[in-house]
């Protein structure tokens, strides 16, 4: 039982972290302010908008709906961990080509949930893409650009595999 510091160990984008967290800290705030990776954005804090989505142990998770103390021994991937120094992830590249985003605040959420979606649905139909993308909100609102980006990435990644 603890109300002050609680020690956790986790990996974030392949790097180990030992940290002391307060139980009332969300994973989102921990990642943003304690680890200093501010690419994961907080936009609603009630799990609807998806801007805070990251990947925990392979699963897409709303980091505003998870506490840091729940990430003990977790493998977390954030938006910063998706591209390498040399290259963007094909999904990021595709989104750039289709001008999917404008202000960019929601983009990390779409990239993270998009990556998991593509893993689970390597040859999606446009309808499936629209449905999957409906879990994340974009107020600048060029959803067609986002759909096209995902389609393009799916096609490319599928070509790469074959």
């Amino acid at each position: 039982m603890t109300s002050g510091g609680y020690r956790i160990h986790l990996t974030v984008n392949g790097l180990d972290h030992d940290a002391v967290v307060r139980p009332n800290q969300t994973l989102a705030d921990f990642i943003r302010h304690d680890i200093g990776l501010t690419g994961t954005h907080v936009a609603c804090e009630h799990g609807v908008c998806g801007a805070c989505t990251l990947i925990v142990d392979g699963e897409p998770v709303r980091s505003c709906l998870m506490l840091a103390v729940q990430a003990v021994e977790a493998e977390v991937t954030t938006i910063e961990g998706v591209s390498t120094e040399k290259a963007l992830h094909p999904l990021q590249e595709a989104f750039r080509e289709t001008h999917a985003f404008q202000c960019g605040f929601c983009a990390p959420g779409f990239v993270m949930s998009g990556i998991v979606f593509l893993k689970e649905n390597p040859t999606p139909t446009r309808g499936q893409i629209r449905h999957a993308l409906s879990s994340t909100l974009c107020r600048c609102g060029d959803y067609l650009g986002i759909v096209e980006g995902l389609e393009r990435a799916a096609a490319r990644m599928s070509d790469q595999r074959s």
Partner: protein
Amino acid sequence: MMAIKTTPLGQSIPRREDVRLLTGRGRFVDDIQLPNMLHAAFLRSPLAHARVLSLGTQAARAMAGVHAVYTAQDLKDLIKPIHFDPHIEGHRVPSYTALSGDKVRFVGDPLAVVVADDRSLAEDALSAIEVEWEPLQAVMTVDEAVASDAPLIFEDLDDNVIYHALHEYGDLDGAFSRADRVIPISIKQARVTSSAMETRGIVVDVNPASEEMTCYASSKAPHMLRGRIAEHLGLDHHQIRVIVKDVGGAFGGKGAVWREDLVVAAASKLLGRPVKWIEDRVENLTAFGGARDQGVEIDAAVQSDGTILALRMRMWLNHGAYPGMWLTPMFAALVRATVLSQLRVDTFAFETLIAATNKNTYISYRGPGSAETLVRERVLDVIAAELDVDPVDIRRKNLLTVEEQPWEMPMGVTVHRAHARETLERAVELADYTALRANQVSARADGRLVGIGIATSIQPCPGFPDWWEAIGYKTEPAPARLRLEPDGTITLVTSEMPTGQGHETTLAQVAAAELGIPFGHVRVVLGDTQTTPFYYFGTGASRSSNMGAKAVISAARELRRRLAELGAARLGLEPYEAELPFAEIARSIYADGDATSLEAADVLVYYKPSPTEGGWAASTHLCVVEIDRRFGTIEIQRYIVAEDCGQMINPAVVEGQIRGGITQGIGVTLLEHAAYDEDGQHLAGSYLTYVLPKAQDIPEIEIEHMDIPTDDDFSARGVGESGMLMAPAVLANAIEDALRPFGARVTELPLTPDRVLQLMGELPSESSGLT
């Protein structure tokens, strides 16, 4: 303009800003972490209208981690009261303070601020603040506000009327008496809010030793923020620096300075430490502000062939309580000055009634004057229906031709080179309108509720200077600064402040094209009042692609001219060299330290359009909808845009803006309602109740660009607001058309499934009691 082999102008170059935004390396206000930073939270009124009998902050101050609790009383000598100058005669502007003192006037009204080690502790302390209230009757609608027994919201006004005026043009009585028919039309819209994905927020960092104040803001008008903080806190402008990096959407509302900004600045000054305030989503949906919440009643004097002789309009607008920076009479003036736009109508009356209520502040939200398109296009469709004329034909009857322009609207606004008719005909052609109507006949025979909607609009993006005068503003000149760097690359400093529009890319395209250099050689700098030239209004009104770009072109032409001269003098180049060797010229200038040459390499220009510069963009939207008879839900089966915004700097950016505007328009028309109940409680304070459009709500959108030649040598006009202007009008028309078998009239937005079934007579027409 000099053309080079491959000009970046007109190309859908991928945006520079996307590399950082897609990889999570943007810098938004909440990403700012400063040493010793504290966190603010605001105590907000849970009541719509009440006197504050007492406010006890002792207990809150004593809580762990709390550094300060300030009330209006604490800040009364630090922050000047807020009072906007009415710039329109008859406009009444109440005064108020940054934190409310003895009275609260809407749910969310801020009365105190807690500054603590973290936001969680600050919020804990909020619940320890003791308030004694005397609840007052809440006033929620304009009708309630102007009733003779209405409670007075602001004691320094005589009543709740903010503005009431009648503007009349031409011989109305004559026109109405000549008319074959007088057709009444009415249309109203509920209150909505902009809900950018990034909420408001600010970090203010005062260095007590140097007395410098640095503000990291989510703003589209950094110079305005600087000026207003200086004015209200009694500081010198040069003490204040506003830095804006990335902004997660603004859509109008972040072009104002907020009470919370002033309070956070005061707190940082008092504490001598950085203070951060990030608005949470509940605050953003309830306390930030509302838009639309207006209605117009129209009487149209028409001839049986569909010619409109005159229009009488009466508009009401629900001002909410506290005035914000963009004063509501201006929004009404926007409607008055553009509702006629491309119609051949010069006999017109417009009555405006704006009243204060116990709702949040009225904000500018993308296309704040969009009622003008909604009203006009509804009027045209209702007239068409009443006279049994096809809606396309009614427009053909009443829209100005290019030959009739320039045309002066009765309020002194010039319409010129506005290609409304051309976009109409193109949309009709693309849609194969005749086939659509034929399909509709067979669909109706099968009992399916298919509707076709059309709407046309011209947008003053930027319009001509007389349009701005007509709404009570002077066009502010737009600056641009170009500096030749020692290696021949170019730094472009703009005072445009993008919040998603892609200026770091588009303005670089414009500069590179004009200078005749590769796109990659131009870098755009913006967002810092220390670096950027003064520009009060900031980015907005869909002007940047015209005025912002023209400022860049102006500066680029001047720089080219100077460099051509220097190149001729120093390097013996031909004076009219098509491709100047920028690197060589730069090396030459920077090597020998000649003052005149160095001065020449840095150009600052303010661009102000002449009375005939600017122009109107035009578009027609056409859509096909089908109503699900079981649930009243709307499927948008086809959506076509034919638009003329002149030459496009970056077509992908243009299309993104149009589509994004349409998405917001769909939200306003079908989904969103920032609802208040009769007691003034705000009922849509989360995304569970304030419903934003998602991917599945948006149809496939076909966009045809027309770029009809004008004699401008740079003809780009803005499109940022057009989707938002058009989608509600075209959808309202399509849905009414789908409901034709029931003889229903669309008079109210949003057209929720509930309302659609009511219009079909499937559900009882009942008022929800919500406004």
